[in-house]
């Protein structure tokens, strides 16, 4: 693996490669690719907006795939001629991640399938959801899914591709759980997310390994490094992880279990995601990276074995499915297995057949799902034991379904016929060793026979086989004629390809194969694959007859087979998965509860103990705690104040059960600390400490008005002692640590700040310059946190109503009887105080840049003065007179601060660079203007808004007559 440092190679290398591509004739840079990718997401909101006009909604949803289809057709001739269209934009070059798109024949084929089948599915869904409100939500999700799918097939950068890969898993989860109120849907969705999401992780690992070996995540680079990758020692790992990724997505054995359970999704989803597109994403990726993996022996054995297993299991189980969609799901699994198997062979001809069959499968499976969905909707059931003899009720449906069913079974002159022929020819040709030469064709014929069997069952059972039994919706309602339109289109395509397979083979499939092989010219001679020549093949017809006979035999013996199947113990993967999941969830909840049980004491003791463990060891290692710096002399006043401080702090701990008194002591402690800061020449800290102290006590008292007045006695006796010991040890530890740090000389960054404060920040108050300039980004983060905290308080208290809460006896006792709510003296005194306080606040704010003060302190003073009005005159009075709500104030503050920062970008300086200059004005004299002041204004507004939002909302809680409007 490459060392991390090598990652830095990506950007330059990418640019180089792009340059060289552009100069070559076969590649072209094309913006249309980006448009194709973004179209679905651009149209995504339209159906949601137009949800009350179903016709307009479906038309808007159809527009995106229709335009994409048209654009692709425009590009198709060039692409089929071997040209590769590219789009490139560096996203995060340091990670090798780029918005990089590529359209070659392979991508174009898939994109055409995605958009083309998308059109028919959206059209069909409009009729499927007719009369229900679900359609707009479905359209929005399907457009999102379409974009994800297009992203997978168009990505040139593998990391970029992975984003879309995960997106398909997630949207598939949402779509399977479309009817989230049904348990079966939720469980199916969870199972599928678990399997495909896990596969996505494996694929991520494989891609990262490949990227680190090759040194780029660009497809063109990786495809060119076949030899390097295959000879690398981790190649088996890459291959294994890659295969897990694609097999989970493409529902290969043993990961196929999620697909049948995904059938609880609405039928348009099954038709689109779970037969035509998403499950083909794995196949696509195998084709995309075909040049890297094919030819490796491991690849051949694993892919062929898994593909065969899937083909047989899928086609065998399908026969037993009584659920129509279950049958189709297993049939999809078997066809996916077939394609995988062909890819495993590694020969050009097999790849051709795989591509050919992939197209065919999409064309005959989608209409079958639509048929199943229509019947399900009409009859109210999909159970093949109940649905019989519908040919007399829906003759057109029978005719239109016959064609795709027959194509699936491989009847002559239909597309499936040709691909089955080719498959059997391949199975005879590609083996080399002895026993495989017999086994593979034999199994291939067996699989083909099974598939004939379930195809017959699906058709005969649905449309003939006696009369309907116990249908919930009886008499059967008519099916809208529009539903037949997509069915007819698909049937026509099946017929067309059946009659003229060579056109598709030569015009589309061969360029695709060429692209999949990395634009190497094809060496195989495809002329023997022409239909006319295949028809004359001596034993192919015999084999074909054999498979039909086998299928018929299986179907005739169905009663005995069903009886045998019913006698088997039922194992439901979903139930097993669900019980495992429940077990896992229960265990994790237990684990979480051990750590996080809602007890604040416990969290604090975890934190303190962790800190103790991590600091005590290095502290113990010190030779001596005291460093070499001389100690300051101790004067009597400081010592006395210190002792008082300790007494106060201990009193808080001792008296903590009487909450109000403990609050008073907290206040006294804060006051003493303020004096301490002033004594040791930190006026800024003194101001800040004091303002914060006052506001904090204010808020705590507000909370105290609806909390119990005393804390309950600790029930467990030893706990108090334990906590006392831990707290003492931790306190002494912190003291020792600070002592050790402060008595040692050290190179501190403060010298830099002191030296650069005036020349760099234009302010002589270093603390403020640090806050608004040197560390402006920190401050921006901090005020954002403050704003979030205030909004959280707002959200929590918004719908909380404590009014009507009658005061407890405890309260009344503390009140000393009745008192006026708004005493006259207080009211009269409070009002003139506001302008004075605002003046102080403005003074502190303005001089903050050069002398102690600043936006934060000024904000707290303003908030304190405003809250005095609330206290003295009542929330109603004050709220009517507040001209602004608090949330806009917070928002404005953050905006001012953020925009000031962004402003420096305009002048080509880094974010939050400040600017200052000195000006002369006639009366005022020389003064300074600094952008830092503007930033400080943002801080001020945020602080005022946040504090008031918290205060006013907490005050409102206990107010019986609220202000009449929301305080926000």
């Amino acid at each position: 693996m490459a060392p991390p440092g090598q990652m830095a190679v990506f950007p330059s290398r990418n640019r180089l490669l792009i340059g060289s591509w552009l100069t070559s004739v076969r590649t072209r840079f094309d913006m249309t690719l980006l448009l194709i990718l973004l179209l679905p997401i651009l149209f995504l909101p339209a159906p949601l907006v137009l949800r009350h006009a179903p016709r307009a909604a479906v038309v808007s949803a159809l527009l995106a795939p229709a335009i994409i289809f048209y654009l692709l057709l425009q590009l198709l001739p060039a692409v089929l001629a071997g040209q590769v269209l590219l789009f490139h934009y560096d996203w995060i070059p340091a990670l090798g991640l780029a918005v990089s798109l590529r359209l070659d024949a392979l991508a174009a084929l898939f994109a055409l399938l995605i958009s083309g089948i998308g059109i028919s599915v959206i059209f069909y869904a409009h009729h499927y959801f007719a009369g229900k409100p679900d359609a707009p939500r479905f359209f929005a999700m399907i457009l999102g899914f379409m974009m994800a799918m297009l992203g997978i097939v168009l990505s040139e950068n593998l990391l970029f591709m992975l984003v879309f890969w995960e997106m398909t898993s997630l949207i598939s989860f949402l779509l399977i759980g479309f009817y989230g109120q049904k348990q079966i849907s939720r469980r199916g969705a969870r199972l599928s997310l678990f399997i495909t999401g896990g596969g996505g992780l494996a694929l991520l690992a494989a891609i990262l390994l490949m990227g680190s070996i090759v040194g780029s995540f660009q497809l063109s680079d990786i495809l060119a490094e076949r030899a390097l990758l295959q000879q690398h020692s981790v190649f088996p790992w890459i291959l294994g992880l890659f295969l897990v990724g694609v097999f989970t997505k493409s529902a290969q054995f043993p990961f196929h279990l999620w697909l049948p359970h995904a059938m609880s999704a609405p039928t348009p989803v099954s038709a689109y995601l779970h037969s035509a597109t998403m499950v083909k994403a794995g196949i696509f990726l195998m084709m995309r990276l075909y040049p890297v993996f094919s030819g490796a022996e491991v690849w051949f054995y694993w892919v062929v074995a898994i593909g065969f297993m899937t083909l047989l299991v899928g086609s065998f189980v399908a026969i037993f499915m009584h659920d129509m969609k279950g049958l189709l799901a297993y049939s999809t699994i078997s066809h996916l297995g077939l394609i995988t198997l062909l890819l495993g062979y590694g020969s050009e001809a097999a790849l051709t057949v795989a591509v050919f069959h992939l197209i065919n499968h999409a064309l005959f499976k989608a209409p079958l799902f639509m048929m199943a969905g229509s019947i399900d909707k009409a009859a109210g059931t999909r159970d093949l034991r109940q649905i019989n003899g519908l040919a007399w009720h829906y003759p057109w449906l029978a005719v239109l379904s016959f064609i795709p069913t027959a194509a699936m079974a491989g009847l002559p002159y239909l597309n499936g016929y040709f691909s089955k022929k080719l498959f059997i020819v391949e199975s005879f040709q590609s083996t080399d060793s002895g026993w495989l030469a017999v086994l593979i064709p034999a199994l291939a014929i067996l699989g083909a026979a099974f598939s004939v069997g379930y195809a017959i069952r699906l058709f005969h059972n649905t449309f003939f086989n006696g009369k309907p039994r116990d249908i919930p919706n009886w008499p059967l309602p008519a099916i809208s004629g529009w539903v037949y339109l997509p069915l007819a289109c698909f049937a026509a395509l099946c017929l067309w390809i059946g009659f003229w397979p060579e056109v598709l083979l030569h015009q589309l499939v061969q360029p695709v194969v060429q692209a999949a092989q990395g634009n190497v010219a094809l060496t195989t001679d495809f002329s023997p694959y022409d239909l006319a020549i295949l028809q004359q093949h001596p034993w192919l017809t015999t084999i074909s007859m054999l498979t039909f006979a086998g299928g018929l035999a299986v179907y005739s013996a169905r009663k005995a087979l069903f009886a045998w199947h019913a006698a088997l113990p039922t194992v439901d993967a979903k139930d097993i998965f669900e019980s495992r999941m429940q077990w896992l969830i229960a265990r994790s909840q237990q684990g979480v509860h051990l750590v996080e049980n809602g007890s604040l004491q416990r969290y604090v003791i975890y934190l303190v103990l962790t800190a103790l463990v991590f600091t005590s060891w290095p502290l113990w290692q010190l030779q001596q705690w005291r460093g070499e710096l001389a100690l300051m002399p101790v004067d009597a006043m400081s010592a006395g104040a210190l002792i008082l401080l300790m007494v106060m702090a201990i009193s808080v701990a001792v008296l903590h059960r009487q909450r109000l008194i403990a609050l008073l002591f907290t206040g006294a402690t804060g006051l003493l600390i303020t004096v301490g800061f002033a004594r040791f020449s930190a006026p800024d800290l003194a101001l800040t400490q004091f303002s914060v102290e006052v506001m904090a006590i204010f808020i705590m008292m507000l909370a105290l008005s609806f909390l119990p007045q005393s804390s309950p006695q600790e029930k467990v006796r030893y706990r108090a002692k334990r906590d006392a010991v831990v707290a003492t040890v931790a306190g002494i530890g912190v003291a020792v640590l600070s002592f050790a740090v402060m008595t040692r000389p050290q190179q501190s960054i403060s010298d830099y700040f002191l030296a650069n404060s005036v020349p760099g920040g234009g302010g002589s108050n270093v603390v403020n310059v640090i806050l608004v300039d040197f560390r402006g980004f920190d401050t921006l983060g901090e005020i954002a946190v403050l704003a979030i905290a205030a909004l959280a308080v707002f959200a929590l208290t918004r719908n909380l109503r404590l009014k009507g809460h009658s005061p407890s006896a405890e309260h009344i006792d503390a009140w000393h009887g009745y008192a006026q709510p708004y005493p006259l003296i207080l009211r009269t005194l409070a009002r003139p105080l506001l302008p004075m306080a605002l003046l102080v606040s403005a003074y502190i704010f303005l001089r903050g840049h050069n002398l102690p003060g600043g936006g934060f302190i000024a904000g707290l003073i303003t908030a304190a003065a405003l809250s005095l009005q609330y206290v003295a005159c009542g929330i109603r009075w004050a709220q009517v007179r507040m001209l602004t709500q608090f949330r806009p104030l917070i928002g404005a503050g953050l905006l001012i601060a953020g925009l000031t920062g962004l402003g420096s970008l305009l002048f080509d300086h880094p974010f939050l660079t400040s600017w200052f200059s000195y000006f002369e004005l006639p009366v005022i004299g020389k003064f300074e203007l600094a952008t830092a002041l503007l930033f400080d204004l943002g801080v001020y507004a945020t602080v005022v808004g946040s504090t008031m939002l918290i205060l006013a909302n907490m005050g409102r809680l206990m107010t019986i007559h609220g202000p009449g409007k929301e305080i926000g």
Partner: protein
Amino acid sequence: MLTYAVYIALLLFAAAILLCLYRLLRGPDIVDRILALDTLAINLIAIIVLTGILMGSNILFEAALLIALMGFISTVALTRYLLRGDLIE
């Protein structure tokens, strides 16, 4: 001369603070305690101003101003809590 006066004043205010703290600790009533806290704040203003005079700097005076302003607000809040059991209504 001024220095001595300041020192004596400091000592006296320190003694006053001690007495306030005693009241704060002893009580006996919550009203005594609130009164003690308010007086404590006033004494601290004096201490800060005196320290400023002693250090020959006026940088600490804002702190005194602030304590004067905010100390009043917190006393109001405390008394109101005592009277009504609720700060804002």
